[in-house]
C-alpha cells in the first residue's frame, strides 16, 4: 500500500518533526509513503475568510498535486476536512476528496489497526478534539482509541470538544475573544502534563496562550504521540 503525505503549510514549518513521525509510523505499518514536492497549502485560510476565488486557486493546485494518489494522509483534521468536505463544492468531482484521510482515521478505518503498541503505558493525557475533525469528519473515537490501546490514560475533560478559539483568521480578527476561548480550555484542563491534538492550528493557539501565561503544560501532535505508542515497544 502506498500513500501520499500532505504535510500542510503549518505542518511543514511548525510541526516538521511530528510529520516525520507520521512517516515513520506509517512505514512501521508497512505503508509506503511518498511526498509530492509541489504540495503547499489546501486553501482553507482563504475559504474561511470568504475569499472563494483564492481558495479555488489553491484547491486546484492541491488537487492536481495529489491527482494520482491512491490515498492522501494528513496529520491535520481541518485540512482533511477541507479536502473531503469543501473541495467537492469548489471543484468538479475532485478525486482527492474521497481519498483523503486524517492520520488516526487512516490507521483505524483503512488499515484497520487499533493497537499500535504499548509505548504510552502509564501516560496521563488530555485529548483536544479539533472542531473540523470532530464535526466534519466525524472523527470522535479513532484517536482516543489508539492512545488508550497503547496504555495511555486519556483523562476526562469536560471541555474537550469545545472550540479552542483558533478558527484561522478569527484568531487575529477577534483576538480578545479568541484568547478568552483558549483560556477557558486551559482553565478547565484536568491534571495532566500533556495535551494532544490532531490539529496544528489548535496546538499553536493553545500552546501559544499557555506559554504566555507560563503554564507548565506541553502540547503534542497526535502523530508524534502515536509514534511513541508504536516505537515504545510492541
Amino acid at each position, binding site marked *: 500500500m502506498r500513500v501520499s503525505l500532505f504535510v500542510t503549510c503549518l505542518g511543514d514549518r511548525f510541526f516538521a518533526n511530528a510529520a516525520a513521525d507520521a512517516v515513520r509510523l506509517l512505514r512501521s505499518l508497512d505503508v509506503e509513503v511518498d511526498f509530492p514536492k509541489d504540495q503547499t497549502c489546501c486553501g482553507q485560510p482563504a475559504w474561511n475568510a470568504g475569499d472563494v476565488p483564492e481558495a479555488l486557486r489553491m484547491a486546484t493546485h492541491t488537487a492536481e498535486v495529489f491527482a494520482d494518489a491512491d490515498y492522501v494522509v494528513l496529520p491535520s483534521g481541518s485540512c482533511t476536512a477541507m479536502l473531503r468536505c469543501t473541495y467537492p463544492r469548489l471543484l468538479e468531482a475532485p478525486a482527492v476528496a474521497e481519498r483523503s484521510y486524517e492520520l488516526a482515521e487512516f490507521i483505524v478505518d483503512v488499515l484497520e489497526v487499533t493497537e499500535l503498541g504499548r509505548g504510552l503505558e502509564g501516560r496521563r493525557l488530555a485529548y483536544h478534539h479539533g472542531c473540523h475533525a470532530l464535526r466534519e469528519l466525524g472523527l470522535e473515537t479513532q484517536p482516543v482509541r489508539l492512545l488508550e490501546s497503547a496504555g495511555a490514560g486519556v483523562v476526562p475533560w469536560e471541555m474537550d470538544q469545545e472550540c479552542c478559539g483558533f478558527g484561522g483568521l478569527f484568531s487575529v480578527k477577534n*483576538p480578545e475573544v479568541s484568547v478568552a476561548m483558549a483560556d477557558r480550555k486551559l482553565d478547565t484542563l484536568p491534571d495532566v502534563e500533556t495535551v494532544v491534538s490532531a490539529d496544528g492550528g489548535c496546538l499553536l493557539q493553545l500552546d501559544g496562550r499557555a506559554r504566555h501565561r507560563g503554564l507548565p503544560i506541553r502540547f503534542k501532535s497526535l502523530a508524534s504521540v502515536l509514534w511513541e505508542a508504536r516505537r515504545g515497544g510492541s
Partner: protein
Amino acid sequence: MEVHSGDYRARARRIIEETPEVREAVTAATRTFVEHRLEAFADLDEDALSHWAERVKSHALTHLADYLEEAEARLVERGAHVHWAESASDVHRILERIVRDNGVKKVVKAKSMLSEEVGLNPFLESCGVEVLETDLGEYIIQLFDEPPSHIVGPSIHRSLDDIRAIFHERLGTPRDASPERLAAAARELLRNAFLTAEMGISGGNFLVAETGSIALIENEGNIRLATSVPRIHVALIGIEKVLPKWDDLSIFLQVTAKSATGQPVGCFVSIIQGPGGSAAGEPDGPEELHVVLVDNGRSRLLADPEVWEALRCVRCGACLNICPVYRQTGGHAYGYVYSGPIGAILAPGLVGLEETLPLPFASTHCGACKDVCPVRIPIPDLLHVWRKRAVERGLTSGVERSVLGLWASVVTRPALFGLAEKVAGLIPDQVVRHLPMLREWSAGRELPRATGRTFRELWDEGIE
C-alpha cells in the same frame, strides 16, 4: 432598535476586559441549558424530529403567501383585526392608532424579540404610554436600561448580586434579598400593572394557518396574564412564524421547549384564536385582538436563494447556548436584538451586510450550532455565504485581501513557496511580533516556534 454590530470587536473586548463576570455568568447559564437540552433529547430520535421539523418549516416558507392569507381569514372570522406592517415605522403607526383610538396609557409587555427589533418601547413611550416589561428577565434589563443579551433568557449576563443591587435601588428590597423575595417584589408591582393596563402586547412563537391560532410559550405566566387581563391584546408576529396545520403544533411546542431549556414543554402555553370577552361570549379576556403581521426585511430574506433557510428559525436559542464564541461575551457584543449564530446570519439579511459586517466573522466555524438546530438551519454554510459576499463586495480589509492574495500566489508556485519559507525563517521574532495580524496574535499568545528544519528539508535528508 439601533444596530451596533459594526463595533463587535470593541464591544466584545470591553465586556471581556471590563466586566469579566459577564463571561462567567453567560458561560454558566449556557452550559446549564446545554446540559438540560442533552437530557431532554437523550431518548429521542433527534434526526427524525429535526428532519420532520425542517420540512414542515420549509413547506410553510415555500407556500407562505397562501398560509398567511389563510391565517388572516381564520382570525378575521373570529373577530380579530389583522394588520400588515412592512417596516418598523409601519408597526409604530399601527400601534399609535390603536393607542389613540383607545386612550391607552399603560401597556404590559410579554417578551417579544420582534418588538425590540422594531424599537417599539421607545416609540410607545414617546406617545406618552407607560410600558412595563413583565417577563422577569425583561423587567430586569428594563431596570438596567439595556437590551436583551439572549433570545430566551434576556438577563443571563446579570448575576444575583447585580439584580439585588438594582432591586434595592428601585424597589427598596433589602440588599441581601433572596431570589424569592426579589421575585415577590416584581410580582406585586407587575400584578398591579396587569390589572390596570389597557393593553397587553405579545409576540408569537407560532401562527397556525389552519386555525388562525397564535401560540405563545412561557414559564412565568406573564404572557397568559398580559394576553388575558387587559382589554386589548396586540400580537406582533413575524411573517415567517407560520405553521401550516393544527396537528403540527404539538411537536413544535415540544421541540422548541426541549431545545431552549430542556423542558418537555413550557409551563404555560397560550393558543389564541381570537378576542375573548363579549366578542366571544366568554366571561373575560380581551375585547379586542390585533394581530400585526410584520415583514421588516423577511420577504427580502425569503427571496435570497442562499440564505432563506435562516427563516426556519423557531427562536429556541439552542445555537446561542452551544456557541463557544457567544459564551465569552453574551449578546451585547453583537449589537443587535438577535445575537449568537442565528443573529450572525439574520442580521446581514434583515439589516444589511455593511452595517453588520463583523457578525458573520464572529465565529470560528466550529459547527456546534448546526448539530443542535431543531430545524436544521445550516448555520456554518450561511455564515460562509455572508463572508463570501463581504469579500465580493469589497467590504473586507485591504490588508487581509492582500495577504490572502499574496499567499495564494506563493502557494500555487511551489518554488516560490520554498523560498518564502526560507525568508520567513530569517525575520526575527521582534519584527514578526509587530507585523499586521501577527501583532494581534502576540498580544496574548507567544508566537509559534518553527522547528529547526522544515519537513521538506527533513524529507530530503531522509527520514529514518
